[in-house]
């Protein structure tokens, strides 16, 4: 592994040394550079008011006299962003958050905090830098925040609360991770074969030391992306190739901790345009690499000199290669790929989940006579921000096989081998836009048996713009999404696994009059069967399997509401949501929720 890292650094050095020409990156979409030398200060931000009333009912409350039947809560929040460009090559920004909880008076429940702080600019018209908070993503196997489970094609009625979660946890459509550190970017231009080369590197602290047993944890990495010239004008062939390296490590000089982790992932990704001619394009793309996870110990030798020694190490590889075929006029894209992600492949930057199963829920975390933990549901996933995190974990996080069993850790889910496919048709502005994604995967190494699990995942979604069929001025849109997932394993009776789940999203948006929408939506989820969920210890080794996990779950989330958009990014919505959870027939833990809320959201 160390050899690979050394080789990559060597290749990088050689490329830098032999580069024919240099040009500075202006930062693309990242850097905002003032048009002139005059300093500017801008104010923008986000304001939000959310008030909700949530009531619980169902069998779980029978004989339970402790649980309050109705909760009222809310918040008033202002994120004030102060952005300054003191000159044309520098920019700083701070977001100050003022927050007051519903019911808070004269300071009680009120908080003032800095939500974001960064500075960025360009050095010598060549190197772009950024320090402070930043959102970064590399490849799906190195640094990436995989999408959360429980969503296929979220109905518009449920999106406002989901957007609150995304905003609070810094989730972006680019699957970036929120980090705090420093970043450098620069690029080169070449004359022949290579067209350009971009280099990006960063280092960030993802955990602070407690000065005792917990050391600082840092993550450092970089990518080198090069694009070739077009090799064949008639076919349009060209290649984009990237080298990615990321290293997560505990600083054993911080605090009194003597042991810590080391996780290194090195990959090569590529997108080769085999043909891009007229209406058609064919690309071969993929990524391959290797990971290393090690536990280091700080030791002192006889001379009093400190050094880190590796206590144990584990390596594994992955490969993801596929073809993508596009018919541009028809707006049709078909892709298929083969994936092979080793059982011991570990990439903390790519496998850390957004949902933290096991976290305390905001709404009725414990209910019933015995005050048992309430089972998480689509109701919680769709609105409870306390279940979400942007932290990176030093081991594979817990997951719920009902919502995601095939790829619980995104593309980088370890111990998977098989075929993935996807079909995309249309765009948001077309009458119909549709997409189908799926995976037929199996384990590479068994868990608790030599028998291997087989996974089937189908996700389909469509947006039907009915108003475009009828030439209506006001919008009427039907959105549908379905996810079908099965997990099967043979063997003797004890080893058998047979778990299936279905998630159906249905949404309707009707623009009654200009900017005023009536929203209807439903999320229907069912899960049935059994599986084994491993308990993991260090190095992601499976410590044990608790009792077989039995799923017999029916969930129904219905919503009706209105939304008025004052102008772009400023809206108010009033909604009533009803949720019912049946955990098997006559289960005393069955429960239901009713929630009425109003949300005012303003970006300025």
């Amino acid at each position, binding site marked *: 592994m160390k050899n690979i890292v050394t080789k990559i650094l060597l290749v990088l050095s050689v490329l830098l040394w032999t580069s024919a020409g240099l040009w500075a990156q202006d930062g693309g979409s990242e850097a905002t550079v003032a048009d002139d030398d005059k300093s500017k200060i801008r104010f923008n931000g986000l304001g939000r008011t959310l008030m909700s009333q949530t009531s619980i009912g169902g069998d779980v409350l029978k004989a339970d006299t402790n649980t309050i039947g109705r909760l009222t809560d809310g918040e008033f929040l202002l994120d004030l962003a102060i952005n300054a460009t003191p000159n044309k090559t520098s920019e700083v920004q701070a977001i100050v958050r003022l927050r007051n909880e519903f019911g808070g008076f004269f300071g009680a429940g009120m908080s003032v905090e800095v939500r974001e702080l960064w500075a960025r600019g360009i050095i010598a018209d060549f190197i772009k830098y950024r320090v402070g908070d930043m959102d970064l993503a590399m490849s799906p196997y190195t640094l990436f925040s995989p999408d959360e489970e429980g969503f296929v094609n979220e109905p518009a009625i449920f999106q406002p609360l989901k957007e609150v979660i995304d905003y609070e946890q810094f989730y972006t459509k680019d699957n970036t991770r929120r980090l705090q550190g420093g970043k450098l970017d620069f690029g080169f231009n070449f004359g022949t074969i290579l067209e350009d080369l971009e280099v990006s590197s960063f280092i960030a602290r993802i955990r602070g030391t407690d000065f005792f047993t917990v050391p600082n944890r840092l993550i450092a990495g970089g990518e080198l992306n090069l694009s070739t010239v077009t090799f064949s004008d008639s076919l349009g062939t060209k290649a984009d190739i990237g080298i990615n390296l990321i290293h997560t490590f505990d600083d054993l000089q911080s605090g009194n901790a003597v042991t810590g982790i080391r996780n290194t992932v090195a990959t090569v990704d590529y997108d*080769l345009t085999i043909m891009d001619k007229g209406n058609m394009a064919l690309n071969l793309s993929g990524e391959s690499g290797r990971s290393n996870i090690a536990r280091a110990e700080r030791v002192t030798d006889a001379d009093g000199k400190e050094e880190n020694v590796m206590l144990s190490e584990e390596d*594994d590889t992955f490969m993801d290669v596929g073809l993508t075929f596009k018919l541009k006029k028809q707006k049709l894209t078909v892709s298929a790929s083969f994936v092979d992600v080793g059982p011991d492949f570990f990439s903390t930057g790519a496998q850390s989940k957004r949902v933290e199963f096991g976290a305390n829920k905001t709404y009725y975390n414990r209910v019933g006579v015995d005050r048992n933990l309430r089972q998480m549901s689509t109701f919680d996933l769709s609105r409870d921000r306390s279940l979400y995190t942007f932290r990176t974990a030093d081991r594979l996080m817990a997951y719920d096989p009902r919502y995601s069993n095939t790829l619980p850790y995104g593309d980088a889910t370890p111990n998977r081998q098989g075929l993935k496919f996807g079909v995309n048709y249309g765009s948001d502005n077309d009458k119909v836009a549709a997409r189908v994604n799926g995976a037929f995967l199996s384990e590479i190494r068994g868990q608790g048996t030599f028998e291997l699990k087989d996974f089937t995942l189908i996700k389909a979604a469509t947006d039907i713009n009915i108003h475009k069929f009828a030439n209506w001025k006001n919008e009427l849109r039907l959105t549908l999404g379905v996810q079908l997932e099965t997990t099967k394993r043979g063997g003797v009776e004890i080893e058998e696994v047979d778990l299936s789940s279905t998630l159906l999203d249905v949404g309707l948006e009707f623009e009654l009059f200009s900017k005023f929408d009536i929203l209807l939506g439903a999320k229907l989820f069912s899960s049935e069967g059994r599986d084994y969920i491993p308990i993991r210890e260090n190095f992601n080794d499976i410590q044990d399997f608790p009792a077989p996990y039995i799923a017999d779950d029916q969930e129904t989330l219905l919503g009706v509401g209105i939304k008025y958009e004052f102008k772009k990014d400023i809206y108010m919505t009033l909604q009533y949501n009803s949720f019912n959870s049946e955990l098997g027939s006559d289960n005393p833990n069955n429960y239901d929720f009713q929630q009425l809320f109003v949300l005012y959201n303003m970006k300025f």
Partner: protein
Amino acid sequence: MKRINIFYLTMIFLVLGLAGCKHEKETFDGPSLVDRFGPFRVVTDLEVSQPTVDFEGGETVFFTAQFNKNVEWVLEITGSVSGSVKIIEGFSNVLDASNATWDGGTTELPLFRNEVCNVTLMIPEEAEFMGTTTVETLSGKQYPGSIFTAFEEELSGVDVFVGNFEFELVAGIRTGNAAEGESYYIMEGTDNVVPNFFVGLVDFKATLTGNNYFQFPTTVPEDLFFNCFMLSDAGPHGLGIIDFWVDRNDNGTFEEGPDQNFRVPADYNLATWEGWRQISHPMSETGITQEDLEKVVAIRLLLISDMNAQPNPPLQVDFGIDYMTFTAGGPLEL
């Protein structure tokens, strides 16, 4: 044309060159699900490899059984006369010579005698299961080390001095309930006549072995271990002390005045256990040197009554001792 060749070469290199994925697949992750959750079934019952065993002659005996899955099992061998217990534990689906062999050793004192032993196989997770068999021992295990005395014969008055200065000590060989063999040495008494903590002492001289000095398997204090079995009735006020005496005036005999004693720092608090227990410690704990170990002339046992805690009149205190032996390299392993 040249450019397009470079492209195809790049493509072949990336796809094939990076396609090698080898993973560890020879085992599976985590505990076996069958072991963890499968129903338990006995495939073959508990059996013994031979009905009798001569440990002294170097023989061993092993037990066999087979289950349908790996389980935690406990094999308990109990001497029908001595009451000695040997416990062998394991996690497997098979008991055989590799994991269920008995060499005559014991887990709980006393040592096994020549007797019929009852063997019981138990599975803690399967409370209803129990396998049984018997095996007869024809001779006991030969333990390593230099035995000083096992108190199986009457001791010569010249070699043993009983310090019954206050006429309240009973000391001597007692037959029955020994840790090894048939008899052991007992010291008992009350500190009632002269209440000064001291009940009595016994000096065992090296001449018991036929030599002026003890002949140890090694004279390196860190490597030389003193071992004995000590009996207590868990009475609350007794202390036992063992001293090792070194001949300081080089006259080959034990003389308390000029000679020097070495003692394990901690006394043996007789209230802390009941029955026989093994006492083992390296001689280095006493502070004795390698040179001193070549001139050890006596071992002294002292019986102390803790008068600060005794009621009035004081209760009897006592302890027994058996199988005093020295081993090299480590404590006596039963």
